[in-house]
């Protein structure tokens, strides 16, 4: 099969997967007990008329799958949803009345990417580098130290590490306790603004990077150790190549294969946000938006957030498969 036909087939399957996920989620959310029209409000002043008006506004008075009452059979919640999605309209939030899902999820996405992407990149870079060094110096104190560090940070609960860093970071180093930017600040230059953002990003990114680091370190280390035991490495040594050249030309590229899969998986899940880090540092990202939406039964926001997640994960995996095709010449069809 030619490369372009292979690509088209893969993208087609990815789209089908996204649709299946969306449909499944649509019905899954409606299984939750509770009434979105009340949005978690338990108040004696809340009138029955207002709840009914909310129910009608949300379209919850319509049947879920097929309309067997008066009107066309496709006038149901599911088909209305599919129809508006096809038109690019993600709907309006139930809890943040009169705000569109696109607006809410978009803003939260930007905030999440600001936090999670640098953390992922730092964790990947540091984890891969440390893993490589640990494998190279296998058995030495450096290796044991790196291994311990990786295991400890990977197994620490995120919120615990976050609270610790928040306490010491804000007390001893003057880092802010919450928020993305200094509120009401006026900047004299773009560098001031970047500086302020980095100042606020430092602790959350550090927390998240530390927690992710261990995974990359450990997998890189074991991958490199395995590669170094291969015969072709022995041949390269016999040929007289320097250790540096061995690693660069033969070792690294082969050891990176499992890491590529891992990176793809993790980057895909970037979009689900870092709920614990976001809560500890009051960072208004997708994780917090999703959790709040669950407690208020905000179906449109949940559907929008999960759509984003599905596209992100499935897309990242697709890209990983394609990268694999390039990286590993042994693979002709994945």
């Amino acid at each position, binding site marked *: 099969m030619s490369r372009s036909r292979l690509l088209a087939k893969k993208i087609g399957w990815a789209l089908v997967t996204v649709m299946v996920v969306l449909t499944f989620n649509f019905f899954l959310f409606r299984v939750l*007990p*509770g*009434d979105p029209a*009340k*949005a*978690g409000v*338990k*108040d*004696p*002043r*809340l*009138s*029955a*008329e*207002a*709840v009914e*008006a*909310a129910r009608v*506004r949300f379209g919850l008075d319509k049947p879920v799958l097929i309309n067997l009452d008066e009107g066309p059979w496709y006038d149901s919640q599911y088909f209305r949803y599919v129809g508006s999605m096809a038109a690019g309209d993600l709907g309006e939030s139930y809890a*943040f*009345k*009169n*705000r569109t899902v696109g607006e*809410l999820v978009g803003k939260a996405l*930007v905030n999440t*990417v*600001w936090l999670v*992407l*640098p953390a992922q990149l730092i964790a990947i*870079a540091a984890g891969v580098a440390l893993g490589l060094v640990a494998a190279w110096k296998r058995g030495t104190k450096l290796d044991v130290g790196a291994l311990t560090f990786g295991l400890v940070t990977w197994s620490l609960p995120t919120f615990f590490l976050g*609270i610790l860093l*928040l306490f010491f970071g*804000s*007390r001893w180093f003057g880092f*802010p*306790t*919450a*928020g*993305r*930017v*200094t*509120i*009401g*600040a*006026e*900047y*004299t230059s*773009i560098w001031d*603004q*970047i500086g*302020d*953002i980095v100042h606020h990003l430092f602790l959350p990114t550090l927390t998240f990077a530390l927690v992710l680091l261990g995974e990359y370190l450990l997998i890189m280390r074991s991958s490199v150790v395995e590669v170094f035991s291969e015969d072709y490495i022995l041949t390269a040594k016999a040929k007289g190549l320097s250790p540096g050249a061995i690693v660069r030309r033969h070792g690294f590229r082969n050891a990176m294969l499992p890491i590529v899969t891992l990176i793809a998986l993790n980057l895909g899940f970037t979009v689900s946000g870092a709920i614990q880090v*976001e*809560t*500890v*540092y*009051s960072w*208004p990202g997708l994780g*917090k938006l999703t959790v709040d939406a669950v*407690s208020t039964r905000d179906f449109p926001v949940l559907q929008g957030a999960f759509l984003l997640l599905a596209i992100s994960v499935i897309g990242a995996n697709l890209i990983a498969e394609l990268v694999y095709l390039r990286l590993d010449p042994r693979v002709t069809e994945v």
Partner: protein
Amino acid sequence: MDRRNRATWLVTLGLLVAACGTGGDATTTATDDSGGTTTAPSTGEGGTVRIGWGGAPADLNPGIGVLTEDYTLYDLVYDSPINIDLDGNFQPELATEWSVSDDGLTWTMKIREGVSFSDGTPLTAEDVAYSINLYKDTEAFPLLPSYVTPFVAVEAPDATTVTLTTADPLPNFEYRMVAMYVLPKHIWETVDDPTAFTNDDMIGSGPFTLTEISQSEFVRLSPNPGYWGTVPTVDEVIFQTFDNPDGRVQALINGDVDMITEFPATAIANLQGADNVEVADGNYFGGRLADIFFNVVEPENCPTEEEGGICSGHPALRDVNVRQALATATDKQQLIDVVLLGTADPGLGLVTNSLGDWYPAELEAADYVFDIANANGILDAAGYADSDDDGIRECPAGAECGPTGDLTFRLNYPTDNDEHPRVSDMLSGWWNEIGVKVEIAGLDSDTLTSVCCPSFDFDVMLWSWTSDPDPESLLGVLLCSEISSGFSETGYCNPTVDELYAQQQIELDPAKRRELIVEISRIALEDVPYIIPWYYPRIQAYRTDTFAGWQVGQTILSLEDPSTLTVLRPAG
């Protein structure tokens, strides 16, 4: 380009792109981006007050707001005809005086002259009448219509007079006016659908105006220079959202904020030990209570299947002896000491001790005294014996005894509260000693509402209520008519209580009204569908070295209220 350079280039590019992005997405109300010469918020003479809270306002439209934070914002940006002060007394705000006709059916308010909205338009009685009518007529508004449903007609015969007519006499007129935020008619009458109006500009006549809001992050307010009352001294008020309670407490201790509106009881000792930080306590407006309630709905009162009625409650709980025994086996003081570290007042009934004279203090002597032996005695006398000797009592012969055939009750509570797990454990311990077993399960609030009311699919529940500053506010849960509406949590139905409630609704003489309310409370105490373990104190903390004028030491504590924010000035 090799790997390292590519990575660096991507990161830099990303930073630049995002820096441009962050500037644009932050606000829904524009602020002047003139770009000053400082990198910190401007500090003029009055200073910037920073307040940390746990939530954030979701709606700028007073008609549709449901969160506490929404109302905090409305109180600062809007005025209402009548205000309630920190001692619980009603004070003139936009209405300088008010009176009722001899037949008790027509109220007249005189509206203050010389008041304008923040956009310069004068405020007259027309705006007041328009606003009240808007709240009354827009059915889709969730909360505010309930305050003004009794009014048949609301008119503004001239620029300084508003008349309100009712079908029956109204004893709590002032209380209803407190929530009537006066909106500018010239803006709102052009709106097609008041429920869909986002009201981003928030034009009001209150002491503050909205400068900037970033959803779920912060709100910035500045003084309204044209305010008719005391123009605030401070330059700016910033409310910042801290999702993490520890972060909030740490921010106050570090000096990042000047006041925090709420924090867990466990942080009190930490805050008291910090430098330049004071912890203040007082009451909520109207009071806030914790409750333990039972499913007592009689089968004939069960809501229909269409209304959602399931009514699976344990039959033994419909026996008042069982409830009285459980109340006698509940040590309120011990609960307060262990769970709240002794900071709360013991509860009594649904009329809280923040309601001043309305609180039926004379009934305190009639409350249940913790006594396990007594409780056992009540159940013995009522015929609940432990015939199979397994430690759990069974019902009297011939009586229905639920799915397990003995006194095993389901106990549910909302998971968004730290105290409930501990409370359930303690209750379980005491109630075991009188032969009652509980199966404890925490549920999220929405799920809990769906099993509570009007489905009545539970046995025992723990929850809480915040009362409005009027005694009638929570007593409605005891009415038969509220069983199918979902407001009644217990399914309690007593025609005498219904009759007394209806009488107090139209009783203008405060002394007589109080008698009726005390009688309702006495019956409720005797029938005990609710056990009220405690009334929550309002506890807040503030810094002493940045601002002075915090309104503490009065009956009600509300440092985010205009009563503090209009008089706050820099310390020292």
